[in-house]
């Protein structure tokens, strides 16, 4: 075996082991890497009230109620939903049917959010196209 073939084999084998090690580490830390829990995961987990975490999903249609600066709404993953209360300024993209990630604590079944972030999907199109899709009934997105 020539020296460069030895080096090639070494690099390939070393990278293979490295990839395997990384995959195992990432699998082990999966819990820590997820940015938010869905309402279903949250209801299953029943985290303690002092634990700060994030819940993500869609803002349930017709659930948003504003009184002063306090907003209450439900975050849903279309199977389960969690009521959220939040006092503060909402991002511009916050709408019913829109993706949302709230950070805070689950206190007695109600999620008290300290921060609410909007999450949008990977679809980009002009407003006229969105309008046309809705008219033709082929709209698949949320409720802009």
């Amino acid at each position, binding site marked *: 075996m020539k020296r*460069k073939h030895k*080096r*090639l084999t070494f*690099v390939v084998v*070393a*990278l293979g082991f*490295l*990839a395997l090690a*990384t995959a195992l580490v*990432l699998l082990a830390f*999966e819990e820590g*890497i*997820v*940015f*938010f829990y*869905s309402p279903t995961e949250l209801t299953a987990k029943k985290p303690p009230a002092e634990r700060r975490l994030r819940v*993500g999903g869609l803002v349930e249609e017709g659930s948003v109620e504003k009184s002063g600066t306090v907003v209450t709404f439900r975050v849903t993953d279309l199977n389960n939903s969690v009521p959220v209360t939040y006092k503060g300024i*909402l*991002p*511009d*993209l*916050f709408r019913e049917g829109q993706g949302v*990630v709230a950070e805070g604590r689950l206190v007695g079944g109600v999620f008290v959010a300290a*921060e*609410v*972030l*909007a*999450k*949008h*999907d*990977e*679809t*980009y*199109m*002009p*407003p*006229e*196209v*969105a*309008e046309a899709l809705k008219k033709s009934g082929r709209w698949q997105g949320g409720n*802009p």
Partner: protein
Amino acid sequence: MIQKFANPARFIRLSQALLPWMAGLTLAFAAVGLYLGLVVAPADYQQGESVRIMYIHVPAAWMALFCYTAMAIAAAVGLIWKHPLADLAAKSTAPIGAAFTFLALFTGAMWGKPMWGTWWVWDARLTSMLVLFFLYLGYIALVNAFDNPARGIKASSILVLVGFVNVPIIKFSVEWWNTLHQPASVLKIGGPSIHPSMLWPLLLMALAFTTYYLWVLLLRLRGEIIANKIRVLRLRRVHGQA
């Protein structure tokens, strides 16, 4: 075939002919891409005018990954086949890749604040991209940390190859874990979910960024080759062989 381009003198001649083409293509693609992106392309149905940050942010992020992949390939070729030009290509790519990564992170923050409501979150996509930035900086620090350039190249080539595990993690972070960052819009199964009127300016900008990278890479490589020549001449003079 590799041997044919391994000759630095031949490379100097070839790159001399390519440089004006790369410069011209970069300016042409960027001019048309920016005009289409900033003037002609429509606003987004959700994000409004803010969507135009995409025409800088997305190509910068693509190039950050592209440059790192190119660096890893060059480093592997340099380590295995002892190809001197490959070593220099890896070394010359690092600062360009670092700049693209910084641009992607910076424009991402500018975009995140109005859309998501935050400059920064520690989700898998943003964090792995920050790790990429540090990998570039680490490479640049390491490659220059040795008195003997060959040892610097060897140590930093190993660093690049080890860091390459981060590249698929960045690409698939938005699919493997839930993140605040949305999944891919262009390179995904089932075709792009971005309207053609917005996709074309984006692709033109990606071309502009690519030719810009090649342009600067050729310039930096020529500089490295000439610097090497000067080093050799100096050494000969010191040893009295001139």
